[in-house]
């Protein structure tokens, strides 16, 4: 068993090294966020300091000069992330339900039209979509932030696959009990789809929270999100004689915490779900 033990130890050493390398940017951000601005001028502190509370109260209070206060941006990010994720669920579940449980003229056309939107990620269609959004008077509003992003081919596809595995006997039984199609959706399909709904919600929440290009185009000032607002903060922070990287890193931690926490909490589910999908 000796050589095996040695191999295991070597493996742990290599993996731990990679884990440290992965974590290093985050660790140094924590160090910066817990220090005062001049602490980085004459070298790199290796341990966190005690300034986190002070930095937090500064970014939540008056912000960095010329850049918006962070509380408002966090609320905007949360509204956008919730709006996008819930909006995608509300739009895509009925489409998948209609495509699987009904036969109607134009059914396949509708399905393929939705799937074709896969070709048009926001980074590809942002220019013409921006023009339409402007004409509809939706700039600088939550509807402008959210609605152009809530059509979701992947969510429709996901729920279609999931609904197709529903036993037809359930629908027959519901019909015999006098339950209509909407009752069946609400009382049978949705409760049985809870894990899938939760998973799509989490993925789309992260998608909404992490958006950068779209908020950059359609909002300014009052509707700015954290992820997009950090750009202004960086330029404001660098205009100081002593660059305020401690404040920028404080905001960065606030901006990355929600999606990272969500992924860590859901991680077990991810690997299991993926395994089921790939096998």
């Amino acid at each position, binding site marked *: 068993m000796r050589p095996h033990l040695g191999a295991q130890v070597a493996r742990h050493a290599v993996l731990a090294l*990679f884990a440290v390398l992965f974590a290093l940017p985050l660790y140094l951000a924590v160090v910066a966020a817990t220090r005062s601005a001049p602490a980085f001028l004459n070298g790199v502190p290796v341990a966190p300091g005690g300034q986190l509370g002070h930095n937090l109260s500064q970014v939540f209070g008056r912000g960095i000069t010329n850049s918006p206060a962070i509380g408002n941006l966090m609320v905007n990010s949360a509204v956008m992330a919730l709006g996008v994720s819930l909006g995608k669920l509300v739009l895509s579940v009925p489409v998948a339900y209609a495509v699987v449980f009904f036969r109607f003229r134009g059914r396949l056309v509708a399905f393929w039209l939705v799937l074709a939107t896969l070709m048009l990620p926001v980074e590809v269609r942002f220019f013409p979509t921006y023009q339409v959004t402007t004409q509809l008077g939706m700039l600088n509003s939550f509807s402008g932030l959210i609605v152009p992003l809530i059509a979701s081919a992947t969510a429709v596809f996901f729920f279609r696959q999931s609904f197709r595995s*529903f036993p037809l006997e359930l*629908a027959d039984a519901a019909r015999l009990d006098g339950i209509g199609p909407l009752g069946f959706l609400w009382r049978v399909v949705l409760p049985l789809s809870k894990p899938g709904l939760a998973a799509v919600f989490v993925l789309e929440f992260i998608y909404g929270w992490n958006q950068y290009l779209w908020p950059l185009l359609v909002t300014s000032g009052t509707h700015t999100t954290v992820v997009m607002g950090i750009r202004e903060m960086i330029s404001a922070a660098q205009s100081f004689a002593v660059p305020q990287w401690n404040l920028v890193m404080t905001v960065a931690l606030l901006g990355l915490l929600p999606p990272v926490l969500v992924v860590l909490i859901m991680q077990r589910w991810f690997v299991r779900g993926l395994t089921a999908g790939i096998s």
Partner: protein
Amino acid sequence: MGVSVLARQTPSAVPAAPEGLAAKRRRRPAGGAGPAIFDHRFLPYLLVLPELVVVGVFFVWPTVRTFVEAFERSNAFGLGTRFSGLSNFVDAVANGNYLQALEVTVVFAASTTVASMAIGLFLAVEVEHLRRGKAVYRTLFVWTYAVPGAIAGSLWLFLFQPDLGPGARLLTQLGVHWNFALHGAQALGLVVALTVWQQSAYNFLFFTAGLQTVPGHVYEAAAIDGAGALGTFWLITLPLLSPTTLLLSVMDVLYAFFSSFAVIDIVTQGGPAGATTTLVYQLYQDGFQNADTGLAGAETVVLIAIAAVFLFAQVRLLERRAHYR
């Protein structure tokens, strides 16, 4: 949601029907064109209507307009437009910037894809061979994938801020003349490294999932035949993972092509001298900073064509993967 988002997600995670229910499932006719489960005249249309309205207003209509604008040109006073054939496309190609952006995009996509796949695969295989601690390492290797691109860019911008960031100081002490605001190769290297930092996590996740499907007895057989660790990897693990590898290579390239905007905008703004300007960033500059509608339309058409090719490849790969079952 688009391709790039698909590439950031776990698209194949399909929940199964509750056990026991699935067992006595009636067989559905092939092709899915079987009898209606519910009969209703208007309800199905009402159900698909909201999604189709959003798709129509924010996908179809803008795209159709772009295809029209790509072949039009405003007159001198911007008061009207006239058909101009392929001249916007010719302008885009004749403009040296666009070809440079294409080259930067290809280099960026190739290097981030190869590096993050190699790292993701290496880590996934190593973790898989561990006897204990798998869950801990999975957590440690997966989180960077969820960090918003712009925030990741901010962390790395701080790290490599010339004369100030910890990483920059280290490089200077090693004798590197570090200033990515001046040296194009350094700027490109920085955004590549930062993208690999994020994409490796994504590749790790997919390779880990792929490895779960390799049956243990295959490894036992290899061990009995006296195959070493490297031999097992090249002759067994890698071939069995090839469906995952193919799919990931398409997803990684898509991500590099389209979703790198945030990182580039935060760290380099496409500079210095266009060294990190990708096709998407070029479109952003032409459309919003130079307000050239026709040119931006032509560039959008090119991007849609590229996305369509990759989407087609992705669908084919997903189908092929299905055949392995």
